[in-house]
């Protein structure tokens, strides 16, 4: 393994390859910042450029683009509440409130550090455990994925602010319902398309995310009302400040560590991926948080104890590190089995095959320099990203000091352009505007938007996996306890679901 790493370092640490990582990170960050253009489009657009290179250099450039695009996506999530890809939705939950309360620089810095640590730890795990992790990944069947999604869905309670569980539940159901629009995978039947061909593929995640988050936020800003002036002089100065205090770093370290491990493990499963990982990490942290009733805590130094969803830095660090770790984790099935677990790794698989390399159990043996170059370049890409972005953060954060009358049109422009650039379909823009109007109405009534997206993202996968599991078990529910793995997941899910009730009972008994 040591000589493998040396081979990798040898390949990567030559001037032209370092230049490739650097330019890849820069290009990726720029593309990723545009809502809608995530890692998939960024890589797909860069692949033709790499055809002239040798495979290792090509992969090095693409790894840079990949990490750059992920980080760029977090930036738009945090600054303008526009999560362009599903993996960065959870980042917006606490990242955006942080930025709105004047800590944009700090939020971006925490995102950069947590991504860096998540990516680095995951690259380390990848080196140490890739071969036997692929066996675990192959242990997961449709029934297990179903339970994993269900577990993700139980997190809805984490998003209910001020005890409004019912509203959160209603929004989750709405999200689940929206996920059923389009052609159903199992039977090939069109549902709720109203005869419109634009709805055959369902409502796109991007349209819903932009409508409920970015565009509705812009409308809320433009509406007369509570937010009189966003930034006074003091918060202007604070916005570009990116210092993270030692006390905060100490609080965040275990969060980032836990989330990285969780993210990496979830990422290695071909059917799960970064989105689930970031949601689970966010939910887990919220449950682990010492006490979430510190509503009074609002002093600057107390960002750790703010309620989740209102700008808690743990709530930002957890999904960010999990997201990055999961992205690295998704290389496990790709490199060791040749199975792409996510859209991004599918595009990367295409690139590898185009270079004449087939990932799989023999990649280690047949093309050691490519295998190790990919792993080392992931690490180097992470380092470069940090080096490249830290000095830029104060400048990027300054976006928020733009007066509201300019900022609102900018958000509208970027969200509209992002949606249009992906599909070139004006129907998507119309749909986004309609969704945004409904979202503004619901937000005025204090309905949270996060559970809607949670339900929507998980809904499709939940249904597909459930129906697959049912088909495979000949229509019987026995799949829930037939295999030890499924059984334990069932037990965990039930435990999580009933834990508030149990706690309540326990308290009753004690008093």
């Amino acid at each position, binding site marked *: 393994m040591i000589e493998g790493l040396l081979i990798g370092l040898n390949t990567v640490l030559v001037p032209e390859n370092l230049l490739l990582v650097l330019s890849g990170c820069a290009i990726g960050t720029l593309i990723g910042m545009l809502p809608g253009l995530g890692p*998939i*489009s960024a*890589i*797909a*657009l860069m692949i*033709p450029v790499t*055809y002239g290179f040798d495979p290792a250099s090509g992969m090095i450039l693409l790894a840079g683009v990949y990490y750059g695009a992920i980080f760029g996506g977090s930036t738009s999530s945090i600054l303008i509440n526009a999560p362009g890809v599903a993996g960065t939705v959870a980042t917006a939950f606490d990242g955006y409130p942080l930025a709105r309360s004047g800590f944009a620089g700090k939020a971006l810095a925490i995102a950069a550090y947590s991504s860096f640590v998540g990516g680095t730890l995951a690259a380390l795990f990848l080196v140490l455990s890739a071969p036997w992790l692929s066996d675990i*990944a*192959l*242990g*997961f*069947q*449709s029934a297990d994925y179903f339970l994993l999604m269900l577990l993700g869905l139980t997190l809805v309670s984490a998003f209910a602010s001020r005890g409004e569980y019912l509203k959160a539940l209603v929004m989750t159901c709405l999200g689940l319902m929206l996920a059923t629009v389009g*052609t*159903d*995978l*199992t*039977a*090939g039947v*069109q549902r709720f398309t109203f005869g419109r*061909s*634009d709805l*055959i*593929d369902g409502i796109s995640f991007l349209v819903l995310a932009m409508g409920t988050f970015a565009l509705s936020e812009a409308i809320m800003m433009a509406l007369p009302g509570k937010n009189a002036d966003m930034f006074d002089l003091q918060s202007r100065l604070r916005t570009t400040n990116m210092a993270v205090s030692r006390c905060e770093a100490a609080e965040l370290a275990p969060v980032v560590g836990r989330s990285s491990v969780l993210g990496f493990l979830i990422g290695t499963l*071909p*059917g799960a991926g970064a989105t689930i990982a970031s949601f689970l990490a966010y939910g887990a942290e919220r449950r682990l948080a010492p006490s979430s009733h510190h509503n009074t805590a609002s002093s600057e130094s107390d960002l750790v104890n703010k309620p989740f969803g209102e700008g808690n830095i743990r709530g930002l660090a957890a999904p960010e590190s999990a997201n990055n770790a999961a992205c690295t984790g998704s290389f496990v*099935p790709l490199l060791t*089995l*040749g*199975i*792409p*677990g996510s*859209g991004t790794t*599918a*595009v990367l*698989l*295409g690139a590898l*095959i*185009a270079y*004449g390399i*087939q990932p*799989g*159990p*023999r990649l280690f043996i047949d093309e050691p320099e490519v295998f190790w170059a990919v792993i080392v370049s992931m690490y180097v890409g992470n380092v470069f990203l940090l080096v490249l972005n830290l000095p830029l953060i104060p400048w990027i954060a300054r976006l928020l000091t733009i007066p509201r009358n300019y900022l609102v049109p900018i958000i509208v422009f970027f969200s509209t352009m992002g949606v*249009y*650039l*992906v*599909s*070139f*379909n004006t*129907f*998507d823009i119309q749909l986004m505007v309609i969704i945004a109007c409904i979202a503004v109405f619901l937000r005025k009534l204090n309905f949270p938007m996060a559970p809607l997206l949670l339900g929507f993202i998980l809904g499709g*996968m939940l249904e*597909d996996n459930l129906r*697959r599991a049912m*088909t*495979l078990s*000949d229509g019987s529910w026995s799949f829930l306890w037939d295999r030890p793995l499924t059984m334990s997941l069932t037990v965990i899910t039930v435990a999580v679901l009933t834990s508030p009730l149990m706690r309540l009972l326990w308290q009753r008994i004690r008093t």
Partner: protein
Amino acid sequence: MEMCGGGPFWNGLHRLMLAVLTVLIVLPPLAQADLLARVHFLIPAGPGGGWDGTARGTGEALLKSGLVADVSFENLSGGGGGRAIAKLIETADRQPFTLMISSTPMVVRSLQGIFPQSFRDLEPIASVIADYGCFAVRSDSDIRDFSDVVERIRENPRSVKVAGGSVKGSTDHFVFAKAVAHANINPRRTVYVAYDGGGKAMAGLLTGETQLLSTGLSEAIDMARQGEIRIIAITASERLQDAPELPTLTEQGFPVEFANWRGFFAAPGLSPDRYRDMRDTLRDVVSTEAFEKVRVRNQWTRLYHEGPEFTAFLVEQERDIGKLMRDLGFLR
């Protein structure tokens, strides 16, 4: 956004360039109007998929071989490809250099009524490549060939569950249905498990929750060469030059042939001259070394049909698929 090569910006530029080109072509009659002066590829899906790869690969070969100096791409997804077809028809008079990529799903979706148009509303120019279907099992499976599959299904239809990377009723499903129908088994009694993409279907086979995988050959062949899976049959009419070790379904006594073609279409109402130019451009490009390189790199199989021959092929495929889909109950 030049990288995506589309949008309103493009339309403006398009018209301008068209004007310039018309002047250039019309004025000096010395130019031999042999090949297209430029090619604009219309891709009915987002970047990164099979259609995108084929169009961009063909474009790359056109550029590298020097056949055409100016190649552009436009991704227009929506409606399962129907939006791009509608646009091509609506703006036919402004699309003299446009080639739209499509493939077998166009025939399927048109039959299903997902979009009202079919290949008859366009001008089929040529198919360039194909991906044959294949059936694969895990390397440790005791299924040896397709007769084994048939035997087991006859005994117990639920003993062989078939994974496919697309929705019920689409190619992966009906290739399998067609094969078992030949053995006088009602395809509706078999168990097809739909996954969201070929990669996840492959994972489904490897985890052991399904016993057979129906997928495109290009998605399976490398896994087979690495020894993770075993391909028990392919749907080509005879063994392939690139992979002579793979047995065909036909030689196992199931005369089932199926090719998932990918080819190019032009806007309707093409002048005979323009049609000839387009056809010659495609005919020339598939024989270039540059295209061969792209083809081998992506593990596509050669399948060149042009003009009337291509149309006849489409008519036959449409009839074939239509019958099967009615048998399966997907069409009334």
